[in-house]
């Protein structure tokens, strides 16, 4: 099935992944596989309360446990000025709690011991005395004047974190007032968790003799982590070596810096020994950054004939105890302003208020570019409400409002310039695959027989590739990415990038991209990432930014190499440089293609036979600052039926057509789509990190926080259209998060569609069977 890695024009080919042989042999090297001499283990003491004063932390008993070496408390850290650390969102977060705990499972102390088990024993012997306080769990209550103030450190007079707005409020309100049709919905995306199967963790290895810290860490952004660590710890940045080994999934979870990381570093410096800390699954689900938790109200205005006139969105964002959301500095609500989606809204306004509550901190961009999932979910849900209100087929409503191909580059009312797209074509492709009109006829028939059958559509536009430095930075660091390419004398290549994959297949796809640019085979290109001592500075892999940013850097670095290669080729061919042409695999003399040299010939010459005065070697580095983001799009269609006895939804078919611009490796792209759809399916049907009113986390393990298994996961059907990005060096747009962004709305739209004849227009996710069953019951639709 797969093409050979030795092909010299491998772009667009389904080359089998180079990284797989080590993984299928069990020879991946994930963080917990690394064992260093004299390594110690760390475990954390965590608060059982969501809100409590700490009266005392007693550690003597823990020291009595055999194997325990050291215990660290918030007071100890305070003495070192390390009790608080900056978050990526510019807030501060307690490393180990002092004074007060603000969420259940918050870090209170760290214990280091000779074995994992002894560290856990030590944890159980740290005696913390708490005075419980009433927790604030509801973000709306948190904003009321009755709510206690949670963040005493911030001298706040309320629990409000930020207000952010975009668009024209006056014009929006005026347009709503004058629109013949207005629909309004409450749309909630509950708190969910990325939950990669490999938990987060690190090994901090500080060498007293050299003053150098080697920090192995499950990191999606090793360079950014190095910089943040330098800022927090006071260690000079060149004395911090970050190594991100094989990573067992990230999905945004491995972008932030966590308190356990900082404690491990402090302990290693203190004890002069390597310290390993790996979270348990419960720690991962309860304290490592969550995602979503957006409470949104949306209004769309339209004409009677189904042309949208205006969009207004108001949102409360529950950020938990500390604002640790991973967002570019200028966007407290991330790229939520893509909320106008694929449609031509003349005017729009969106506002978001961030709120502190007694929940774990965060708000990571879970397999999405900073709140894009929330935005897409909202617009795709409410467009359907509008379709019902107008008695229009949701397909027809979308067609009437799509931004047309000739309108690109399109300036959205909320500030973005969309690069390219052909939305109608993407939708048509999906409709053809599923045979939409036939599906609707069948639905009609099955409805007559009493079946609950729904068809749901989501035609979304994504915004990825963060990002252009004029608008994007994290803690001031601009969000470019980088690639360094070296060709050795025998024509073999090492390329290093600032990105860091967590399963996306970079070792193959970047090899393909570079091989294509250089006329070499992908087998001859070794990709290295994740080591800050060797890779050039880059902002890492998340927000589908690898191909749009690091991929741009790779193409342009390769072209820089080719430029020099062309000069050498001219020398070898004994013609002037103007007379050299490159056909994708060889340099030849213009009009004389029989005289040609390959890149490998040139490589050898670069070290052996150079033109007079030329600098030897054949390498280049490129730091790519993209001119704009990229805007992939997709059309997803779900067909579902609902069991009237149980409320269980069965996804009968799911078609996903994606347009991510130029495709490097179709097999890898399809795999990314399958994976993202599965995560989107979990979000729609089975996942929520919920809390009781005492602040107890109700989903602290995989028995309560459900991850889709092979049994309920649908069979995915995929298709593709290609509208290259006009400003990207190879026209690629990025794809990894599209399916997670686009699919939840398709599922929910399908379930709502099944129940629409009974007057249902909105349902709150996750669509647990019991919830659906209650809706069925209300409408007299249950059967026993």
């Amino acid at each position, binding site marked *: *099935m*797969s093409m050979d890695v030795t092909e010299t024009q491998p772009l667009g080919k389904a080359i*089998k*992944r180079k*990284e*797989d*042989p*080590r*993984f*299928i*042999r*069990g*020879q*991946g*090297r*994930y963080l*917990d*596989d690394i*064992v260093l001499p004299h390594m110690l283990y760390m475990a954390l003491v965590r608060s059982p309360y969501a809100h409590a004063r700490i009266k005392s932390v007693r550690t003597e008993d823990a020291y009595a446990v055999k194997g325990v070496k050291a215990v660290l408390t918030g007071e100890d850290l305070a003495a070192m000025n390390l009790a608080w650390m900056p978050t990526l969102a510019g807030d501060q977060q307690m490393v180990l709690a002092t004074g007060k705990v603000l969420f259940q499972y918050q870090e209170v102390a760290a214990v280091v011991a000779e074995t*994992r*088990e002894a560290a856990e024993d030590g944890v159980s012997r740290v005696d913390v005395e708490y005075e419980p306080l009433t927790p604030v769990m509801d973000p709306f209550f948190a904003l009321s004047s009755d709510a206690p103030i949670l963040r005493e450190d911030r001298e706040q007079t309320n629990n409000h974190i930020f207000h952010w707005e975009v668009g024209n409020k006056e014009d929006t309100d005026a347009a709503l007032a004058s629109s013949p049709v207005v629909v309004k919905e409450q749309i909630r995306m509950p708190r969910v968790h990325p*939950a*990669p*199967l*490999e*938990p987060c963790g690190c090994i901090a290895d500080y060498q007293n003799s050299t003053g150098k810290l080697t920090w192995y860490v499950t990191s999606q952004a090793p360079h950014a982590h190095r910089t943040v660590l330098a800022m927090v710890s006071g260690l000079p940045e060149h004395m911090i070596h970050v190594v991100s080994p*094989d*990573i*067992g*999934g990230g*999905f945004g979870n491995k972008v932030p810096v966590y308190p356990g990381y900082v404690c491990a570093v402090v302990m290693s410096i203190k004890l002069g020994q390597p310290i390993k800390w790996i979270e*348990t*699954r419960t720690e991962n689900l309860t304290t490592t950054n969550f995602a979503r938790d957006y409470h949104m109200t949306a209004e769309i205005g339209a004409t009677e004939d189904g042309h949208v006139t205006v969009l207004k969105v108001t949102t409360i964002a529950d950020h938990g105890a500390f604002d640790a959301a991973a967002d570019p500095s200028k966007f407290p609500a991330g790229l939520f302003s893509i909320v106008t989606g694929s449609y031509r809204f003349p005017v729009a306004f969106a506002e978001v208020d961030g709120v502190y509550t007694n929940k774990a901190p965060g708000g990571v961009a879970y397999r999405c570019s900073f709140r894009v999932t929330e935005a897409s979910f909202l617009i795709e849900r409410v467009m359907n409400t509008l379709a019902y209100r107008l008695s229009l087929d949701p397909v027809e409503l979308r067609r009437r409002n799509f931004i047309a191909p000739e309108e690109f580059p399109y300036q959205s009312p909320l500030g973005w310039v969309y690069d390219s797209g052909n939305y109608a074509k993407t939708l048509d492709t999906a409709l053809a695959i599923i045979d939409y009109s036939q599906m609707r006829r069948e639905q009609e028939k099955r409805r007559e027989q009493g079946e609950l059958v729904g068809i749901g559509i989501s035609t979304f536009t994504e915004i990825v590739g963060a990002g252009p430095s004029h608008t994007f930075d994290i803690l001031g660091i601009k969000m470019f990415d980088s690639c360094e390419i070296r060709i050795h004398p025998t024509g073999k290549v090492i390329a290093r990038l600032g990105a860091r994959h*967590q*399963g*996306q*297949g970079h070792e193959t796809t970047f090899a393909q991209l570079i091989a294509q640019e250089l006329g070499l085979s992908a087998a001859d290109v070794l990709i290295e990432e994740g080591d800050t001592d060797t890779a050039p500075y880059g902002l890492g892999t998340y927000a589908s930014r690898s191909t749009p940013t690091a991929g741009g850097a790779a193409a342009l670095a390769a072209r820089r190499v080719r430029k020099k290669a062309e000069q050498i080729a001219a020398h070898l061919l004994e013609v002037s440089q103007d007379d050299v042409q490159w056909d994708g695999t060889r340099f030849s003399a213009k009009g004389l293609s029989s005289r040609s040299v390959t890149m490998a010939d040139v490589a050898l010459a670069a070290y052996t036979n150079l033109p007079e005065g030329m600098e030897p070697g054949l390498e280049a580095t490129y730091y790519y600052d993209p001119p704009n983001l990229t805007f992939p799009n997709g059309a997803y269609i779900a067909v579902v039926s609902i069991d009237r006895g149980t409320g269980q939804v069965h996804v009968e078919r799911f078609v996903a057509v994606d347009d991510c611009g130029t495709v490097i490796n179709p*097999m*890898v792209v*399809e*795999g*990314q*789509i*399958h*994976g*993202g*759809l*599965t*995560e989107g399916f979990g979000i729609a049907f089975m996942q929520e990190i919920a809390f009781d009113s005492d602040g107890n986390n109700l989903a602290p*393990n*995989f*028995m309560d926080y459900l*991850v889709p*298994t*092979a*049994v309920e*996961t649908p*069979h*995915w059907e995929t298709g593709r259209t290609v509208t290259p990005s006009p400003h990207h060096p190879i026209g690629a747009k990025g794809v990894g998060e599209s399916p997670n962004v686009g699919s939840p709305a398709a599922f929910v739209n399908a379930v709502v569609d099944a129940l629409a004849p009974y007057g249902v227009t909105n349902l709150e996710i996750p669509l647990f069977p019991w919830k659906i069953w209650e809706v069925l019951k209300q409408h007299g639709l249950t059967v026993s």
Partner: protein
Amino acid sequence: MGRTVINDQIMVHVTINGESRHALAEPRTLLAYFIRDNLGLTGTHVGCDTTSCGVCTVLLDGVPVKSCTVLAVQADGHDIETVEGLGHNGQLHPLQQAFWDNHGLQCGFCTPGMLMTTTALLRNSVDLTEHEVRRAISGNLCRCTGYVNIVKAVLEAKRRMGEETRKV
């Protein structure tokens, strides 16, 4: 049979991937950690500790078990197979080959457990349907691949192995 106990640790003897090995373990040591830390075979992963994710799956006397739910001492005297034992003389097992050919993995963290569960499945079944494969791997979570390609890989391995046997 008497057990060797040294400093509250118990000597555990196992045959792992055909090789006889022994090491000391605390009575509470989980088999997953015994295999990883004491025997140094890190292909078997740990993702949840609660029998939910399946990344720690190994074969114990030929039966797939989640090694985070077995104590090392319970495996004393038994036969264990891990991902490192698949394939012969550097050659991939047909199942491994099928995972590679069909893009049945991404981050690879679930893959060893997935391979062990499906190794047992292939050994014990004559014909396989998609439904049976999905049922069999329902205790092995994967967050990356969306299962379609994993199922495809297992069915293809079955087909290829069937052809091999017919040739013999």
